[in-house]
């Protein structure tokens, strides 16, 4: 009797210890990820812009000046314009890029056609080339198509290159049970209907993931816009912020925080799709 009781207590204390360790790790992880962000936020509120006037991680004086000048002082650095440029480019690239990627991944996962394996191997091989070696060629192509200094040129490149990364999505589609397709096909649905009505609703987690990556890539890319956009008013935020010097550190921090906000909001709106894959309850085999 007593032995059993001590066993229960032991198991219980083991469980408590387990929870305790879990939370300790969580707190450490949270700190590691949060602290640099906190530092940047504090820096954006520093009164003197330069990084050299800080007391360690913390600015010596606080004010909201840098946020105000970010949007009002647009003569040298037209941040407002940059922000909307970036939003437009990233938004459009996100829509087209996600569409292309999902379609490619779905076809590669569900259809068995000639040249499929060849295409898969080709994309894998192409992905292994150093990315920016091709950018010289892309730049020359863009001058030929007369798309230099135009946002649509960037959108074209981002959306056209997006399907190269279809592998993650294909892996996801591969794990969706085939029986769903077969059941729908028996009911007389065409492949298009199966895709739109059955597969897409089950793919919300991967859709969200694809859309987020398709959005964040143009949102933070600097090599392509730097090369293709020469007019200062056409800049994206990434290129614009890179042109800020060290003495403008507070303005840099403020600008960074503002462009991080849309993605954070996106996450908090879309989080539920990423957590629970819906196919967990769809088919039990």
């Amino acid at each position, binding site marked *: 009797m007593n032995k059993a009781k001590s066993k229960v207590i032991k198991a219980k204390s083991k469980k408590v210890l387990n929870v305790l360790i*879990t939370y300790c*790790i*969580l707190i450490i*992880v*949270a700190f*590691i*990820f*949060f602290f*640099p962000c906190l530092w*940047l936020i504090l820096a954006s509120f520093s009164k003197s812009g330069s*990084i050299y006037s800080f007391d*360690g991680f913390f600015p010596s004086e606080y004010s909201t000046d840098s946020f105000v000048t970010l949007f009002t002082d647009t003569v040298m650095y037209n941040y407002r314009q940059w922000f909307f440029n970036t939003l437009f480019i990233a938004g459009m690239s996100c829509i087209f890029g996600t569409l*292309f990627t999902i*379609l*490619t991944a779905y*076809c590669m996962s569900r259809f068995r056609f000639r040249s499929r394996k060849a295409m898969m*191997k080709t994309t*894998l*091989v*192409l*992905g*292994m*080339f*150093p*990315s920016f*070696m*091709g950018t*010289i*060629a*892309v730049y*020359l*192509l863009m*001058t*030929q198509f007369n798309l230099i200094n135009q946002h649509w040129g960037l959108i074209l490149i981002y959306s*056209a*290159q997006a399907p190269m990364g279809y*592998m*993650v999505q294909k*892996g*996801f589609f*591969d*794990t969706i049970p*085939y029986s769903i397709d077969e059941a729908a096909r028996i009911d007389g649905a*065409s*492949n*298009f209907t199966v895709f739109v009505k059955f597969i897409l609703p089950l793919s919300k*987690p991967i859709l969200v993931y694809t859309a987020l*990556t398709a959005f964040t890539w143009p949102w*933070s890319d*600097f090599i392509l816009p730097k090369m293709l956009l020469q007019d200062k008013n056409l800049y994206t935020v*990434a290129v614009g*912020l890179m042109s800020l010097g060290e003495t403008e550190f507070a303005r840099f921090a403020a600008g*960074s925080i503002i462009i991080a906000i849309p993605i954070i909001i996106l*996450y908090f709106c879309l*989080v539920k799709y*990423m*957590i629970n*894959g819906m196919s*967990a309850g769809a088919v039990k*085999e």
Partner: protein
Amino acid sequence: MNKEKTDGLKARGKFVGFFRSLPEKAKKKFSGTKEILTQGNGKVCASMCIMGLGQLLYKQWAKGIIFLVLQLAFIAYFVLTGATDLFGFFTLGTREGNAWYGVEGDNSVVMLIMGIFAILMIVFYVAIYISNVKDVYKTQCACDTSKNPELFKSEVAGLLDKSFYKTALALPVIGVCVFSILPIVFMILIAFTNYGGDTIPPALVDWVGFQNFAKILTLGQFAPTFFKIFGWNMIWAVLSTAINYFAGLGLALLLNKACVKGKAFWRAFPILAYAIPGFITLLGFKFMFSYGGPINYYIQNAGNPAVDFLGINAQWTARLIGLAVNAWISIPSTMLLATGILSNINTDLYEAARVDGASAWKQFIKITLPYMLFATTPVLISQFIGNFNNFGIFYFLRGGLYTEGYFLASDTDLLINWLYNMSIDNNYYSIGAAISLIIFIITSVISLAVYVFSPSYKQEETFR
């Protein structure tokens, strides 16, 4: 061990078999062509001469007109620019520009890229031409056996059903061809020219064969730097991929634990890191570890001399900082991916395992890890390649440094940084292209091998 051996044998058998079966395959392909050539009637011949004519003779108006228009469009393109572009690809320009005499010369590099574009267009045209002939032959066969040929309407409907993949893949394939394949082909070809140094337009560029590769292997200028950087690059790619993958998976599993309350709250911190664009993070960390930065502020306050974390002599500290910063940036995305895939695992498996009394560790080893590896092998490979070619980290942390013993590079630079220094900062275009080709061959062999032996390729249907 045994399994590996049989796998190896199987792969070898496959390899040998592939070449043995080549003549047979070619014969098979050729017999189809032969059949069309010998059996095709006048209408098939009509389509061979003028695309769409055969279809029109069979009274398939819509299809015939589409093929006809495509042919006209191609001819128009070829006459207007295509032919000269194609010609320019081989000559790379004959007339050198001279600003003195107001002579506008040929731009070899543009001619090269437009030449590739013309070849791409021809390939597209040939594909359409073949499908045109095949289509009319199919109609003929259907007519001969007195079946009704497939109606245009039903064929269009088929584009949403049986051949939905054709519709869906058309735009992505064209996009990838023009914006990924064409630039890469361009780069490969550049490796065989003398583009770079003084030879940039308006000077004429020319084909030089394998001279660039010979230069890399024989000139003492390039070879030692190449091998030193390559060694570090391999260490970096393996270490950073392993760290990011397992830390991301671990974090996802930690957050998936039943005892963790407020998952959204805890998950928000890595997401915050994920949301901040990489270049901001990198510049931020550079400031943090800089000589006058906050970390040195505390070191100095404690009475120690300031440490030059990222300076010219900081080989291993800079490398470790690079690994840590890369982990900070990449772990959240791996975590998100792992969370998404974990949510897809059939929960019955765990139920069954628990009933059988399997420990948490055993469940991880036997269920979670194999499933994750199955679903993410392609990701792992692409992450490995991504890390191998991770340009941003050391470009931002230690950009513009050239250390002793290295030719136009620093001791933390990866090959991609070196290529950037060579080709974009210092105009060594053709040498850079040649080196990146060598690297590409090495990495592609490694990853193709891993991919072919991976469970997600070998047993594509296992988890269905």
